[in-house]
């Protein structure tokens, strides 16, 4: 693209032709307020906050929808701009019932920051959304429509996910964002609406009310596990740079809450890798591919509800948190001589769909749930803050044995491509019976929404598709309907970038932030001595001592799927 020069606030700035003014200002650290803008979404230009003046043109212009042109002279702050932003903000406040104590934006709230900056009278108009309904989507998401500012980011992102569960309903002279009543549609609980809402109208179920619940069972042994993606994202809640690796600070923080044991879900991921690699190897041998990953509960729900014909393609391997939870209540409970009924397993997940996953009946082992509670990254951060635990200041602490030390493969599960890469590392060695000289499969990494690769294993070409975002997964499914042999292995994560961009993760989030979180995970893997799941000593040990029969492996590590009816009730 051609380089051009514009003048912003008197300063000459180089940019590319085709960039919007807002993109140019963002790149150059010039702050322009924007509420409905999100780099993941199409430009809508409806909040009318990102206003600028352009020399020689009448009126104010939305910088998100105006392209920079050669020689354009742009002003980003003036009395006129400030006045317009102030009034539009007052109009926005009048449709947003604040509940600032319980809001995922917490001290990051853009609305409050802008209100202060522009001297907004928040109560200039009576709030027109008083009494608007609150909806609950399964065990995962709460949508308080009285906080909604009608920017439609949630509707757009839900559409991008190919789900269209959220929609606009014309009501009287105005519209409302509502969940659809169409029985052929259902929420898949990905929570992308939560992290794309600029004003906190969406949150996890129990996000603020229930965080202490798991710690209240006094007579129980409380065991926490945390997902791969948490260690490079939770730091953001404590002012640390994006992508900071704080695994051991996280352990220390959890211990300070009075938790008995802290394990790592990445160890569970190593088990998932072994089982999924077996399934892939078997399907390749029997020529019954494609094999779909199954650790993302939103993806599983999507298949069960929208595309049940693909159920046979889903790996039956359970997700990492469920396998580890199961092992804690069986293998570890036996070692420690604790009654599994007296153990509370709490998973810290980047995800709100994981709250749904743990409620599945088919995961119970002899009537016992592998995991009792799921708290999101945000919820754990809130719990830390409530207990005055600051991860930026805490001294690191080692994680507990025996289920605390993962391979590098278990850690990269948190980024799109990580599951397939881990499975390939193990499947390759299993099938070829030779050691991998280079364990990195860089073709499947990165932020691209659809990544394709062909890997040669034992003279056989294994065709791989790695997808993040369900809307893109739908495209792959359509291709497979045409040609079932197009791919052998398909990894799908519902959230953009994989779990590092999950619906339970800190806000704000965008492509750059996701990249930094992912980079952190790959950095950890790169430094690990053991980078293949089946090389991990604890994995070998557990298979030797405990997971040594088909039946026991099945009950701890595998599950089944069935077509689903709509679950969300409105």
């Amino acid at each position: 693209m051609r380089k051009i020069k514009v003048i912003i606030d008197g300063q000459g700035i180089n940019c590319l032709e085709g960039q919007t003014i807002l993109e140019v200002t963002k790149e150059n650290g010039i702050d322009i307020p924007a509420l409905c803008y999100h780099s993941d979404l199409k430009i809508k230009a409806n909040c009318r906050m990102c206003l600028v003046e352009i020399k020689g043109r009448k009126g104010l212009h939305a910088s998100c929808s105006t392209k920079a042109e050669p020689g354009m002279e742009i002003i980003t702050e003036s009395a006129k701009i400030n006045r317009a932003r102030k009034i539009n903000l007052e109009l926005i406040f009048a449709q947003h019932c604040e509940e600032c104590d319980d809001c995922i934006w917490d001290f990051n709230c853009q609305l409050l920051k802008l209100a202060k900056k522009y001297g907004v009278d928040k109560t200039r108009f009576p709030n027109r959304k008083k009494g608007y309904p609150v909806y609950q989507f399964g065990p995962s998401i709460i949508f308080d429509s009285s906080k909604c500012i009608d920017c439609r980011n949630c509707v757009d992102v839900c559409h991008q996910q190919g789900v269209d569960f959220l929609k606009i309903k014309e009501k009287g002279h105005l519209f409302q964002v509502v969940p659809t009543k169409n029985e052929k549609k259902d929420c898949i609980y990905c929570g992308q609406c939560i992290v794309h809402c600029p004003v906190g109208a969406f949150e996890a179920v129990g996000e603020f009310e229930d965080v202490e619940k798991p710690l209240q069972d006094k007579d129980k042994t409380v065991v926490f596990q945390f997902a791969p993606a948490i260690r490079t994202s939770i730091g953001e809640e404590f002012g640390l740079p994006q992508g900071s690796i704080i695994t051991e600070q996280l352990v220390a923080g959890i211990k300070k809450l009075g938790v008995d044991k802290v394990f790592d879900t990445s160890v569970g991921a190593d088990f998932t890798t072994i089982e999924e690699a077996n399934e892939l190897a078997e399907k390749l041998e029997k020529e019954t591919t494609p094999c779909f990953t199954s650790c993302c509960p939103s993806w599983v729900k999507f298949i069960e509800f929208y595309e049940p014909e693909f159920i046979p393609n889903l790996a039956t391997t359970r997700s990492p948190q469920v396998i580890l939870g199961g092992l804690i209540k069986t293998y570890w409970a036996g070692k420690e001589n604790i009654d599994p009924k007296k153990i509370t397993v709490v998973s810290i997940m980047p995800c709100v769909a994981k709250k749904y996953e743990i409620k599945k009946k088919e995961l119970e082992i002899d009537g016992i749930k592998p995991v009792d509670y799921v708290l999101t990254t945000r919820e754990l951060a809130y719990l830390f803050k409530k207990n005055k635990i600051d991860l930026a200041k805490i001294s690191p602490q080692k994680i507990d044995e025996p289920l605390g030390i993962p391979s590098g493969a278990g850690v990269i599960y948190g980024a799109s491509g990580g599951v397939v890469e881990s499975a390939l590392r193990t499947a390759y060695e299993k099938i070829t019976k030779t050691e991998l000289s280079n364990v990195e499969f860089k073709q499947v990494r990165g932020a691209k929404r659809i990544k394709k690769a062909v890997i040669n294993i034992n003279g056989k070409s294994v065709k791989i598709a790695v997808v993040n975002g369900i809307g893109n997964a739908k495209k792959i499914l359509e291709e497979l309907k045409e040609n079932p042999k197009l791919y052998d292995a398909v990894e799908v994560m519902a959230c953009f970038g994989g779990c590092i961009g999950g619906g339970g993760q800190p806000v704000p989030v965008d492509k750059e932030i996701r990249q930094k979180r992912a980079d952190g995970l790959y950095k950890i893997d790169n430094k690990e001595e053991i980078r293949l799941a089946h090389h991990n000593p604890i994995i070998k040990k557990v298979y030797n001592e405990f997971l040594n029969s088909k039946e026991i492996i099945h009950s701890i590590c595998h599950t089944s799927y069935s077509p689903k009816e709509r679950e969300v009730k409105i």
Partner: protein
Amino acid sequence: MSKDIIAKLKENELLGRGGAGFPAGLKWEMVKSAKAEKKYIICNCSEGEPEVFKDGFILENYPELVVEGIKIALETIGNSSAYIYLRKDYYEKFKSKLEELTKNLPIALFKKTGGYLSGEETTVFAAIENKRQEPRIKPPFPPQKGLFKCPTLINNAETFYHIAKIAKDEYKKTCFYSISGEMENKGVYELPEDWSIEQILKETKNFPEFDFFIQAGGGVSGEILLPSELDQPVKGLRAIIVFDRKKTDYFDLMKKWINFFLENNCDKCVPCREGVYRISEILEKNKIDKQLFNDIFFVLEETSFCSLGKGVVVPFRSLIKKLL
């Protein structure tokens, strides 16, 4: 003929008659020169504002000229097909006549529940594409990317009428005026485009003898003018509505306007959705809060997404200034 029609449109300085007044020749040239496999032509007969009824008059009296104008467009612009976008009642009324005239031509009729919004051309695309009716970001402009993302020529019914006239060298720089309100001779009149409002009212024997004011342009979005301000042509949609000052309740009038905007705006952008709502909230109490109104007018005018939002201000500001 197709070779020089664009030159003729330019020569005659024909401006679009949908309200915005964009030079027709230039628009045609842009669509013609756009590179694309497929192009569309739309004749907009949505006529959504109260007291504007000249397109209906033209469809009633000169449908063959409108279709002739569309035919010229089809010949001029390669790989094109056309829609006549009709308000619901116009569709019912003129369907059979238009079907007869467009037989064997690539011209389809499209029925839509009218709508003020269709004055914003990109909402017409949304309607035909079966999407929520709201304007799109411009650029790209319709000649670049319009209906189904193809280069699109969208002109008002009256524009096509005049184009047919220009092609036959019969164009006399006239316009159609919708004249209504407190008067004897309501109706649509074809008169020279540069005539002043006063001239038009006198010519049609509608110049009031009572104490009056008028609204000029659109029946809702038009500006309020006093008797001393009539020495100017009428702009926009060229409606002229006469009011008797003694018989007119200003609040009722303003409430009628704001309710129209409330019902007919698309609610996409903050100033138009929330601003219009707040004005109506205050007017309902038969009150005016000048500072607040000024603030809302300011953001409507300066920050609305489309020109219709910007236009909301015109009637209120002029009425408040001149009559209250």
